[in-house]
């Protein structure tokens, strides 16, 4: 009874239409003719789709490990501080910052005559290692790394809070007993803290994954619908198909991506369950 309204809404707005999309993925857009796997064949030979898949994979594979490690590197020292409130809120703040407001700053920083080049040039002049730099970070392969930076910038706080929750959940007695037995800080970290954080790792990976799809906002705002090819993500592709009304390709791709994600989530969950 409590569940009914939500279930109804989910069914109407998500489940049923998704079944519809599933059906459409086997048909042509205009005539509605049944074409079996034609659409799937089209997308898997489509250059743009393959590029987007590659970039999205690359982005995820670079970002998630990086974020997980950085988050842990921040969380461990923070957990030892007495007053961690200020540090935590400073790290969390980017989460609250609307993408639209931050993008103007990124543009100023990564422009070819922007702040980053300015600072790098000053350093270069001081040390005599390099001269003036005019790299256009948004128009070259570096655009990808701008995106990575932006993702890390935004999500570190989230990860730190999750790690902290995990670390503070480890019973203190365990650590103290180890210390009494003469374990060094390093040993404590590798033998006690890390093994106890496996559960947190699972959720952090899943949630980082979820948040990694939102990077599209930054990418879109910084570089538009057709950015430099290294940052052309699946999200761009979906959007462009949507604008061009290529619903058959979109349906097939949505089914593939959805199915893939479903499989990954299930696998991760299975892996996590069996480890426990």
């Amino acid at each position, binding site marked *: 009874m409590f569940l009914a309204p*939500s279930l109804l809404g989910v069914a109407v707005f998500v489940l049923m239409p998704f079944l519809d999309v599933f059906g459409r993925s086997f048909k042509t857009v205009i005539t509605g003719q049944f074409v079996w796997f034609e659409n799937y064949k089209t997308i898997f030979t489509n250059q743009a789709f393959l590029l987007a898949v590659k970039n999205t994979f690359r982005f995820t594979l670079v970002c998630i490990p990086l974020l997980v490690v950085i988050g842990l590197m921040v969380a461990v020292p923070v957990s030892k501080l007495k007053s961690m409130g200020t540090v935590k809120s400073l790290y969390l703040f980017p989460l609250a910052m609307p993408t639209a407001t931050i993008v103007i700053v990124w543009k100023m920083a990564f422009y070819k005559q922007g702040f980053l080049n300015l600072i790098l040039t000053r350093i270069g002049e001081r040390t005599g290692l390099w001269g003036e730099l005019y790299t256009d970070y948004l128009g070259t392969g570096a655009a990808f790394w701008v995106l990575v930076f932006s993702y890390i910038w935004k999500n570190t706080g989230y990860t730190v809070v999750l790690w902290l929750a995990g670390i503070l959940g480890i019973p203190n007695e365990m650590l103290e007993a180890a210390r009494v037995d003469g374990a060094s800080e390093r040993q404590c970290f590798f033998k006690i803290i890390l093994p106890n954080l496996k559960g947190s790792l699972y959720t952090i990976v899943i949630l980082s994954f979820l948040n990694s799809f939102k990077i599209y906002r930054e990418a879109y705002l910084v570089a538009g619908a057709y950015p430099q090819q290294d940052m052309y993500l699946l999200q761009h592709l979906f959007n462009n198909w949507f604008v061009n009304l290529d619903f058959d390709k979109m349906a097939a791709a949505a089914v593939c991506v959805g199915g893939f994600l479903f499989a990954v989530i299930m696998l991760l969950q299975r892996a996590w369950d069996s480890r426990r």
Partner: protein
Amino acid sequence: MDLLRARLRWKELKKGLTVFLLFLPTVLVCMPVILLVTGSVMGSGELRQYLAPVFTDSYRYISWKLVPDYPTFENYGKLLFMTPQFFVLFWNSMKMVACILAGQLLVGVPAAWAFAVYQVKGSRALFALYVVLMLLPFQVTMLSSYLVLNRLGMLDTQYAVILPAVFSTFPVFLTYGGFRCIPVQLIEAARIDGAGEWRIFWKIGFPLGKSGLLSAMVLGFLEYWNMMEQPMAFLEDKSLWPLSLYLPEITWAQAGYAFTASIITLIPAVFVFVWGQDYLEQGIIFSGLKE
């Protein structure tokens, strides 16, 4: 004795160093905000001078001053008193976020309560489905939402953005985390004392699960205040757009205007952040809970 003191000193030094290192990256966090604030109080002449490299093809760098030479509030004045469109957009954002959150409260919270309290057959599988749905990115469900909104004739109205968001499963998951922390014995005791199910929900679930609920609201506010994909896909009429979508449309030629508009967009988010920080953290932690 000296050795001991030296060791103590070293320990203190190390601690100071870690604190310093921890604060270092936060400079990266603060700089953008400071940039925006100073940009918004700069006169247009001064701004043009600093941003000149953006317009011309010279080899000069962009420059900036943390304290403007002639701070003015002219941009704020212009934006707040001379551009009624801005108010329309601000109001759009507010309205959509408020409707979404209210809807989520009405729909999602009872659902979370049901998942947390009534463990019937199949509820676990259903919950797993909710979790998967929460993890699907917008782009995957974009087409299906479009089709259903089209059929309901809601495209290009703000309902197109509000309704699918109301039935998002993320708040259900967060609130569920809060409700799970209520001891089962308490609910059973209430039941034995003859309280009806609604009464239990109101008198026990609501007050005790409040932190989960509020954290869902705080995370939801930040998310929907920032929303871009949905209105971009479903709203063609620019007068219905939220602020977050309009801001990037401002060109460099009106940089001062853009800075000011950014600051005004930022204010509600900061306000919610400062007020709800504890709930935000709680929410993040709940989002990490498994059944």
